[in-house]
């Protein structure tokens, strides 16, 4: 077993365990902190696939922005942090069924995919950031999804300003 394999197994177990903790912990802030561990684990997977840019972007966006915003929102609603009620509702059986079906579907697709057994190409880590940048503005590659995402985010931004705008001062 190579060193990378050992690291992969440790990180995989830690990520899955933390993901389980996210849904079973009762304290909301602890949930958010476990979620951060999960996101960090995924960032490490990206790094191990020599996708350094994605790994760092994962940390910047998901931990640096989204998770902190999440914790902030939880802290502002002080009462709920101490809540001790059950984190399951009556639909938990259906939830398990749906998640199992989803898992089985993904599993079957991945097993039948030809790329699963081929070794990954040796990426030139120096050039990968520039490649991502070019791919995002290439019409044949990801220009359209990139622009759609940009417009969506811009709309969200304008929406946030509109909601927060104090009309009395104008």
């Amino acid at each position: 077993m190579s060193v990378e394999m050992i690291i992969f197994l440790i990180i995989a177990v830690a990520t899955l365990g933390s993901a389980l903790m996210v849904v079973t912990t009762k304290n909301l802030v602890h949930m958010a902190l476990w979620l951060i561990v999960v996101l960090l684990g995924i960032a490490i997977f990206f790094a191990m696939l020599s996708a350094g840019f994605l790994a760092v972007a994962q940390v910047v966006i998901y931990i640096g922005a989204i998770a902190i915003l999440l914790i902030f929102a939880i802290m502002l609603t002080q009462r709920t942090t101490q809540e001790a009620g059950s984190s399951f509702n009556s639909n938990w059986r259906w939830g398990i069924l749906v998640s199992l079906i989803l898992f089985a579907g993904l599993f079957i697709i991945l097993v039948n995919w030809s790329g699963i057994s081929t070794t990954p190409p040796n990426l030139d880590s120096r050039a990968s950031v520039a490649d991502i940048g070019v791919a995002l503005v290439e019409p044949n590659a990801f220009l359209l999804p990139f622009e759609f995402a940009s417009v969506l985010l811009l709309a969200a931004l304008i929406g946030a300003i509109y909601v927060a705008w104090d009309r009395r001062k104008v």
Partner: protein
Amino acid sequence: MTNPLLSISLWFSNLLTGWGLPSGLVAVILGIAGVLITCVFVLVLAVFLVWVERKVVARFQDRLGPNRIGPFGLIQPFADIIKLLIKEDITPNGADRVVYNLAPILALAAVLLIWAVIPFAPSVLGADVNIAVLYVVAVGSIGTLSIIMAGWASNNKYALLGAFRTVAQMISYEVPMVIALLIPVILAGSMGMSEIVNDQKIWFVLIIPVAAFIFLVTSIAEIGRSPFDLIEAESEIVAGFHIEYTGMKFGLFYAGELLHALTIGALFATLFLGGWKGPGVTLPYIGPFLGVFYLLLKSFLIYFVIMWIKYSLPRIRIDHMLAFNWKFLTPLALVLLIVVAILHKLMVTLEFSYILYIVIMFFANIVTFFMALNLVKNYASNTRKNLGKPPEVVVIQTNPKIDQPSPVTSNS
């Protein structure tokens, strides 16, 4: 072999391979040894920083500073550490024990992690990753997280207030910081630290002074030092997020803050002051050591500037802090980014000479900065003019004939 540091690592790896260890394991052991050496080096520097900080603040305040133990009080930091170690370790009632104890560790770790990508010399650097600049931002967000954890887990309202302020400040100042970091990236054409250093035939601070200024200001805000020390403002929220921490746990926060200031110095030196570059770094044998020396010299220069600002300026008010960021620094950084990007592309395509390139870039920076300052000045003077006028009030007069109130607007 003319590089002593490389020779040592080669000798060590040969030694381990000679013992019959597999090459993968040798690489891991070498990596861990590198991490340990860097961390120990930086942490020993932090001990020294306590002394520097106390001496410099003393001179700024016309005092002598520690001078009793050892020559120039040099042994004082060790006395401080022993004092911190033997203090009672208190965990307050109702504190979230695990998160409470994890926060100071994360706070120091987030600072130490930045040193992984700082090149000490051409061959002496932890990880030569091509996304080093973005990595620095990512690690910074883990530092923010540690302060939030400390503030929340302490079960103290002042600590929580400190954490709220931290979120407002650090997330806001991250925006112009990232934009300012993009500007040297555009100039060097890479996000890797070693490429950025190699690209600096002339220090970037002379080509893009305004970007350097924005980076310095936003970094001071990220560390939470005066004038941006709202997160631990002792006169308002006692000590903010670390109010409940005692002994070495407080020591970790304190060391983290001091070290963060030096780390910002090292980052600034790497990005804008040419990093390890200086006379004689290509010499055999002593070259790498000279590189480390130059980097530390430049870092301490910036550290001194940060201390200078800290001990000369009063604390900024919280609404001013946010307004300064969102209404001045962020727009300025965005405009500067656009100007630099267009000029860079234009001048590289038209093959301008390097000297002309530097001169035009410098003046473009200065002009952008003064235009921004002028806008702010005009806005402020307009606001002041309006403040001088009596406020517009609505006077409700009762008309005796109709006997109904009718609003009349007047200027008196």
